[in-house]
């Protein structure tokens, strides 16, 4: 796009780069917001179907416009800031959550070599940005100056930090297979694998890691069964208790943007990202972005499915799963995979 602005419109390179980047960001962020609205609707429909209910069916055909009606309602509400709250931080916290949910999309490849920023530390960037996400929650809990949000913030921080450790090891095993931190290269390295979705399905060493990553991504996004931060029977609405109007809506959007992001990462790291399910030429006619969408939607369905069927974990069970099951398991797999790759790619030491 930069070249279009430079050569067709005769802009100086720097201005062309600037305008092109802004337009690329909008091209990602605006459809993402639309996707969030539609996926909230889908989430509620799936959840309702599993509970044999109808779900939203009043606003628009099949209730399709429900999320927009909710958005409008929230927008027209009054913003209430508790008098004892730390006002600046109270308002900054939802902005942090929302921004962090958006910035990671910069490195997600939508087609061959087509992310917004093709950086060679892409995966580390994802880890770095997702480790920032915890601040939106801690700050909300602290600045509300209210006890339930504070409990929730402490839970959330401990939960996200614990599961990031396991996620880190899982990502290392992916990186060892792909030999690169660049998400585009990681996808290209999955090309030609025979498997259900062109990924590591058939690889007995990486498939367990895919499962661990999926469960950890549920914990990382605080979705059921790990939604202890919003456990309404214990903590009212968790860290969002004191929020209203747009600041609440930002949490809402950020949460779902994070869920979609985690679905995209699952698809990209383990299930071939923008590659078609089989390495078969006619399937490449379909643009890669559609394959990526299909995989994201599949994982989103599984997220909703889990939410509708699995009861909430107790806090000690959550910590046990993170530290005593996933951490040792992923660490063992890092050892096994590195050993296997050394033997198969380099050969046994003489």
């Amino acid at each position, binding site marked *: 796009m930069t070249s279009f602005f430079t050569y067709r419109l005769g802009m100086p390179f720097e201005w062309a780069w600037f305008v092109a980047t802004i337009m690329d960001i909008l091209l990602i962020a605006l459809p993402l917001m639309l996707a969030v609205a539609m996926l909230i609707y889908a989430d509620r429909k799936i959840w309702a179907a599993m509970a044999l209910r109808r779900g939203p069916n009043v606003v628009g055909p099949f209730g399709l416009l429900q999320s927009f009606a909710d958005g409008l309602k929230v927008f027209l509400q009054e913003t209430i800031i508790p008098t004892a709250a730390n006002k600046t931080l109270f308002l900054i916290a939802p902005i942090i959550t929302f921004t962090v949910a958006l910035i990671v999309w910069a490195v997600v490849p939508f087609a061959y070599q087509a992310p917004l920023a093709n950086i060679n530390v892409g995966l580390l960037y994802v880890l*770095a940005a997702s*480790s920032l996400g915890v601040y939106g929650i801690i700050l909300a809990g602290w600045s509300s100056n209210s006890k339930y949000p504070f409990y929730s913030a402490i839970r959330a*921080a401990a939960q996200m930090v614990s599961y990031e450790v396991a996620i880190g090891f899982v990502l290392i095993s992916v990186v060892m297979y792909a030999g690169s931190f660049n998400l585009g290269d990681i996808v290209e390295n999955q090309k030609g694998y025979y498997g259900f979705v062109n990924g590591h399905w058939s690889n007995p060493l990486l498939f367990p890691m895919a499962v661990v990553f999926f469960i950890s991504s549920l914990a990382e996004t605080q979705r059921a069964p790990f939604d202890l931060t919003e456990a309404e029977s214990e903590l009212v609405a968790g860290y969002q208790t004191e929020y209203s109007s747009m600041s609440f809506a930002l949490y809402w959007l950020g949460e779902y943007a994070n869920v979609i992001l985690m679905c995209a990462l699952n698809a990209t790291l383990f299930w071939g990202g923008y590659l078609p399910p089989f390495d078969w030429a006619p399937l490449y006619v379909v643009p890669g972005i559609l394959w990526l969408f299909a995989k994201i939607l599949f994982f989103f369905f599984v997220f909703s499915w889990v939410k509708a069927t699995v009861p909430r974990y107790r806090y000690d069970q959550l910590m046990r799963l993170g530290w005593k099951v996933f951490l040792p398991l992923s660490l063992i797999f890092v050892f096994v995979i590195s050993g296997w790759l050394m033997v198969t790619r380099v050969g046994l030491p003489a």
Partner: protein
Amino acid sequence: MIQAIAFYLFAAIVIVSAALTITSRNPVHAVLWLILAFFNAAGLMVLVGAEFIAMLLVIVYVGAVAVLFLFVVMMLNVDFAELRAGFVRYAAIGLAFAVALVSEAVMALWGYSAGAIELARRTAPTPDKVPNIQAIGDLLYTRYLFVFEAAGLVLLVAMIGAIVLTHRERGGTRPQNIARQIARRPQDATRNTQPVVGGGIEL
């Protein structure tokens, strides 16, 4: 031009937020300014092409260390006014540290712009096209392997030491045995009886 704008933006924010870290009255605000400083320092490192170090800075310092700082500060309710009380008493020591650090910085600058050899070595630390993860990895796992492993060992010992020092065996608790819970079958725990009316059951 964009690089220059980005550099001055990051550098200015680092300096301002570092100053605010020291001067802000609320300890939580101080930690948050520190986080902002870390974050913008990472931005500066991206600008000089050290993207790996920048990401590590964000992951380790912002993502883990600063979260712990924030936790401790929020939980302990540190009163900065109390800490400031001994300002005059510690002023001399503080001044000594400041002088030492400034003189070190000046010496480093002198050394940096010293000779032609130093300048030549600085121009191409790694060949182009080699990502700096690979460049660091090549050195870390070949020439500096033993130092690297020793650093890892020191950290491991420190971690085990911390656990041993703080771990307390508490008696009288009844921890879960997950395997036993899973292995328990309905027939071990329940019994199907047909008591007669008014007869009750033997427990």
